[in-house]
C-alpha cells in the first residue's frame, strides 16, 4: 500500500498504541437441553469454543484477554501507558536510529522515553519497541510527540515526527462540608462522585490532616472487634454514584491550648484518594488543602465545660463555664451578671467581679442554678461586661437541661 504513496517515503514506520489494561472476553451462552432438537450440539459447540470457561460454559465472563479496542478515556491521576514501535518497513538496513517520545501539556513538556540512546542499526522487518508510562497530572489537552531520526544506507539523515493528541478528563467530583462542634472538634463530610463511565473501586479515601489536627475516620462501624464499612459490601462506585465520607478532626492539645481557640481561616488537611478500575488500572489524586473558616467567637467566648443532663425540680445544680479572652492583645476586666428567666433561676450574687483576664487566657467558673418548671429548659441570661470598653456580651441559650420532678427522679 505504501508503495503507492506519491510523497516522500520513510524507511521506518512509527506506530503508537495506548496500553490500557486488556479486557476479558464475554461470550453469549445459548444452551439447550438434551431433549431439544439440537441435542448435544449446542453444548458441544460451546465446549469447543475457546473463549468459554471449561466446565462452566454458561458463565458469561470468560478468561480470554483481548487488547484494548479503542483509546478510551484517560483521567487525571491515572497512568498513561503507550506502546511505541518503530518498524523497518524497507529492505535495507537503517542506521543510527533515535526515538524520542515527549508529552506536551498546556504547561510543560516531559520526556517519556526510557532511553534516548541511539540504536546503531535496524534490520529490515525488525523493530524498536518501547513502552512508556506517565502519571497524568494535568487536565486538558495532551500531545504525545514522537520523533524518529535515522540514517539511510546512502548516509542521508532522515527525521520525522508524529503527534497524538488526547484529552485528560476529571475522574471525580469532590465536595466538602464542615461542621463545627462547640468543643473545637471539626467534622468534615466529603462527597466523592465518580464522574467517569466505568465502575471505580475506592481503594483508599483518607484525610491527611494538617499539623494542627488529629483525625479519626468515621467510615467504619466496629462491631465485635470487626470493622465493617459504612458503605456495606459494595466496594465500588458506579458511574455518577456518590459516597459520603465523614472525618472528625480534633485540634492537637498544644495548638488548642496555646492559641486558646483556633481562629479565622485554618488549613484542615487534604483528601488522598486512590482508586482502581478494570483489572487493577490505578489512579490517585489529592485535593488541595481544605480550608475552613473557624467560627468567630467575638472577643469573649463563654463555653460550657460541665452540666448535668437531668436535674430535679426546684433543686439547685451546678454548671461549669469557661470564659476565654479571644482578643489578641487586650486584657479584659469582666463583670458577670445573671438575669433570671421564667424557668431557670440563678443562685448567687449578680454583678460579680471576675477580675482581669489576659489575652488568650481563660478562667473556669462554677455557677448554681435552680429550675422551677419541668421539661427541657434552656440556660440563658448570662451577661459579661468588659468594664474597660463598657461593652456587654450576652449569652443566651447556652445549654439545655432536662428538669424532672423530684418524685420521679427518686423512683428512677
Amino acid at each position, binding site marked *: 500500500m505504501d508503495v503507492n504513496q506519491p510523497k516522500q517515503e520513510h524507511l521506518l514506520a512509527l506506530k503508537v498504541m495506548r496500553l490500557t489494561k486488556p479486557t476479558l472476553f464475554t461470550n453469549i451462552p445459548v444452551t439447550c437441553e438434551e431433549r431439544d432438537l439440537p441435542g448435544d450440539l449446542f453444548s458441544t459447540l460451546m465446549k469447543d469454543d475457546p473463549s468459554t470457561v471449561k466446565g462452566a460454559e454458561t458463565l458469561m465472563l470468560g478468561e480470554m484477554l*483481548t487488547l484494548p479496542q479503542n483509546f478510551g478515556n484517560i483521567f487525571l491521576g491515572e497512568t498513561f501507558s503507550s506502546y511505541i514501535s518503530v518498524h523497518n518497513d524497507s529492505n535495507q538496513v537503517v542506521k543510527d536510529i533515535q526515538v524520542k517520545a515527549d508529552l506536551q501539556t498546556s504547561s510543560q513538556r516531559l520526556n517519556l522515553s526510557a532511553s534516548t540512546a541511539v540504536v546503531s542499526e535496524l534490520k529490515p522487518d525488525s523493530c524498536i519497541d518501547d513502552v512508556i508510562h506517565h502519571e497524568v497530572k494535568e487536565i486538558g489537552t495532551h500531545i504525545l510527540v514522537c520523533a524518529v531520526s535515522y540514517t539511510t544506507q546512502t548516509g542521508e539523515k532522515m527525521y520525522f515526527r508524529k503527534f497524538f493528541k488526547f*484529552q485528560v478528563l476529571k475522574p471525580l467530583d469532590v465536595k466538602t462540608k464542615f461542621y463545627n462542634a462547640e468543643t473545637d472538634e471539626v467534622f468534615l463530610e466529603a462527597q466523592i462522585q465518580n464522574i467517569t463511565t*466505568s465502575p471505580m473501586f475506592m481503594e483508599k479515601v483518607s484525610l491527611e490532616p494538617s499539623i494542627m489536627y488529629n483525625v479519626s475516620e468515621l467510615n467504619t462501624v466496629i462491631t465485635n472487634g470487626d470493622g465493617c464499612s459504612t458503605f456495606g459490601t459494595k466496594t465500588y462506585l458506579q458511574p455518577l454514584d456518590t459516597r459520603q465520607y465523614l472525618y472528625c478532626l480534633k485540634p492537637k492539645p498544644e495548638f488548642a491550648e496555646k492559641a486558646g481557640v483556633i481562629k479565622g481561616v485554618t488549613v484542615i488537611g487534604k483528601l488522598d484518594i486512590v482508586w482502581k478500575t478494570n483489572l487493577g488500572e490505578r489512579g*490517585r489524586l489529592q485535593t488541595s488543602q481544605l480550608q*475552613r473558616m473557624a467560627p468567630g467567637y467575638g472577643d469573649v467566648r463563654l463555653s460550657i465545660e460541665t452540666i448535668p443532663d437531668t436535674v430535679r425540680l426546684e433543686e439547685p445544680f451546678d454548671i461549669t463555664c469557661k470564659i476565654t479572652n479571644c482578643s489578641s492583645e487586650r486584657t479584659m476586666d469582666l463583670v458577670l451578671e445573671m438575669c433570671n428567666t421564667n424557668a431557670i433561676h440563678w443562685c448567687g450574687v449578680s454583678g460579680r467581679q471576675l477580675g482581669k483576664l489576659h489575652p488568650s487566657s481563660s478562667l473556669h467558673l462554677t455557677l448554681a442554678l435552680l429550675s422551677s418548671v419541668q421539661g427541657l429548659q434552656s440556660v440563658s441570661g448570662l451577661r459579661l461586661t468588659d468594664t474597660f470598653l463598657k461593652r456587654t456580651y450576652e449569652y443566651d441559650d*447556652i445549654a439545655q437541661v432536662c428538669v424532672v420532678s423530684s418524685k420521679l427522679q427518686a423512683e428512677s
Partner: protein
Amino acid sequence: MEKLETSNEDEAGTSREEVGPNDIKLIQEEILFNEETIDLDADAFGSEENVTLSEDSGNLLDKLNDQMMESVIISDSPNISEDDAGELGCLQDIVDEIESHEVLPLEQEINKECKESGNSTEHAGTHDSASSGQQHVEIKVVVSPSEPSPEAENTLQSPSSEHEHELVTPDSKQPQSDDVIPVCTIFSKGNSQPSFLGSDGFESQLIKSPSFTGEIKSTTKLQTQVVQPSPSLSNFFSDNGNTQSPAADFFDSFTTSSNFISVSNPNAAPAVPEIAHGSLTPESGTPTDPASIQFFVGNQSLNSSGSLTAEVSQSPKPFSQIHSVFAGSDDPFATALNMSEMDRRNDAWLPSQDTRNILISVATQKYSAVFIDKEKLTMPGLKFDNIQGDAVRDLMLRFLGEQAAMRRQVLTALSVEQTFVGLKKLIESKNWRAAVDLCGRLLTAHGQGYGKSGQPTNHTTDSLQLWFVRLSLLVKLGLFQNAEMEFEPFKNLDQPDLYYEYYPHVYPGRRGSMVPFSMRILHAELRQYLGNPQESLDRLHNMKAVCLQILDNLEKGLAEDGSLITISPSNRQASVQLWRSRLGRVMYSMANCLLMMKDYVLAVDAYQTVIRYYPEQEPQLLSGIGRIFLQIGDIKTAEKYFQDAETVIQKSPTSNEPQNQMIVLMNRAFLHLGQNNFAEAHKFFSEVLKLDPANAVANNNAAVCLLYLGKLKDSLRHLEGLVQQDPKHYLHESVLFNLTTMYELESSRSMQKKQALLEAVAVKEGDSFNTQCLKLL
C-alpha cells in the same frame, strides 16, 4: 449537653466548597514540580486557559499546524490512515486536521465548565458527556424482507400452500398421535421434496407412524429411561451420519431404539416405505392426502375442534383399524392417561390463570376453539426471508479477487438435506446463517413461512423446536433485532395454543407446554442484548417462580403441574433433579444478566446461588467471581475468591487433575495482572501451558502479556504460530482480534497479513464467522 454553635455553623455549613478539578492536584506534584506549573487552581486555570486558549493554545495550534503539515508529508504512508481517529487501539493522530478543530471548541467548553463548577456551589453533572462511548454495542440488523426466494418456493412452495389448510386441520384433530407427529410432518416434507415425491401425499403417512409409537409407549408402559420422549428428534439428530435417504433415516431411528422395535416394526415398517414413495397410508386406502389426514381427525372430535376445520371428512373406521392394529389397546382414554413420564416431566409448565381457563374450556369443550380470541393465539411467521450470506466470501471478493472467492466453499441451506440431519450438519460446520435459512424453509413447509405472521396456524412440538433452533442461532449470530422480531408473535410464551391441552385430539392426554424450556430462557435473555436487561430479569423471575412452584408441587406429592397423579419415587426423584437444574439454569441467566447490568453485588450473589445448583462448577464459578472483582478493580476481594477456589480444589478428590491445577494457575496469573505485574502473569500463563500446551486461553493470554512487556515480535510470533498450527482453536474472534491489532501496531503491511488470515479463515470457518475481528474494513 453542648450545643452546636448554630449561628456560625450555618455559614460554614451552607457554603459548599466544591473542590473543582483544578483544585485536585497530584501528590507528587509538589515534590516534582513547581506549583505554578501544575497546580491548576480553579481561577487561574479558568481564566488563564480562556485567555490563553486564544493565545497560547493558538500558538500551540499554529505550532500544531506546522507540525501537521509536516506530519502530513511524513505520514502519507498508510499508517496515518490506520492511526486515524476511528482506528481501534491506536492513538488519535493529530494529523487529522478536522479532528483537531473539533476538539478545540470542546476543550473550551470543558474549561468553561470547569470554571463554572469551580465557582458555583452546585455540582454540574455533565462531565461524563465527554467521556461516554466506551462501550459500543454493535447491533447489526440484517433484514431482508423480500419475498420468499424463488428457490425456496421451488422446493417448498407447493406443499406449503396446501399445508396451510391441511395442517391446520389435522394437527388439531389427530386423535392418538403423540408429539412425534409434527417432526414427521416437517420431516417428510423436507424429505419428500428432494426425493421423487410429489408435493402431495407425504405428510399423512409420516404422521402416522410416530403416533403409533406414542401410543405404544403409553400402552406398554415402558420404563421412562427406555422411552425416548421424542424419538424422532433425538434419533435423527444423534444418528446424523448413517443415512442419506430420509426415509431410511427415519426408520433407523425407530428400529434402533429398542422400545420401538418390538412394537412398531411389523406394522410401521411396511407402512412407512409406502408413504415415502408417495403412496397412501395402507389402512386408509384413500388416495388423496387431505382425506388421509382427515380420517384421523374425524373419529373423535366432532363437536369440539370441528369448528376449526371447514370440512371434517371423517372415517372412523380406518382410525380404529389403526388403533387396534398398532396400539392394541381398546380404551383410547386409558392410553391417553398414560402419558409418558418423561414427556410430562419435561413439558410441565404452569400457565397463567387466563390461559389455564381457556385450556380447561378446551378440555371440557365448553366452547369450541373458534371463540378463542385471536389475540390469544400465537401466529408466528418468518419476518425476514433470507439472511443467508457469507461475510467471509464477500470480503474475499473484495480483497482477494473473484477467483479466491470462488474457492470458498461453505454449505448452504440448499446443499444439505432438507431435514433435521441437514440442519445438524449446518450447525456443526458453523454455517449458522444457512442453518437459520433451513429452519426457515422447514417452517415455511409448516405454514409459518415469510409473511405468515398473524395468520392462524397450528403448533406442534417440532414447529416449536424449529423456531427454537432458528432463534437460538440468530442470537448466537448476534442478530438480536431479528430474533426479537420473530419472537414477537410468541408474546410471553403463555398463549393457550402453545400448550398440548389445546390440541386434545392431536396430543390426547398430553399436558404441558410445547415451548421448550430452553426457548423460554432464550426469550428471557434476549431483552438484555437489546439494552433492556430489566425486562430480562422480570422474565427470569417469572420463570424462577414457576420452577419453584413446580418443585413445591413435587415436594407435596403432586405432579409438576399440581395435579393429583401418582408418580413413582424414582420418577419423582428424576423430576426434582430436572427442575432443580432448570432452576439453576434460570439463576445462571439472572447472574449473567446482572453482570451485564454491571450490578456486581447482586451478580456475585446470584453466582453464589448458582453454585448451590451446580456444585461441580464451584471452582470455575468462584474464579469467575474473582474475575468480576478484578474487573471492578477490587484486587483484594478477587484474591479472596481465588483463594476460595483453590481451597475448594484442594479439598476435592480430583485436586491433582490438570484441569483443576490449571484453574489455580490461571487465577494466579490474573491476580498478577491485577497487580500490574505482567511478567509474573506471563510466567503463570506459561505454567498452564506446561500442563496443557494446547490451552487456547493461556496461549492467547501469554501473548497479550508479552505485548505489555514490550515484546511485540515475540507476542506476534507466538500467536501466529498458534493460528497456523491449530486453526481449529485459534481462528477465534478474540484471538484474531488480538492478532490483527498487533499487526496494525507492527508494520505498515498489516493489510497483507490480515488478508492472509482471511484466507485461513475461508478454509476453516463457516458462514457464521464474525469478520469484524479481522479489521479489514
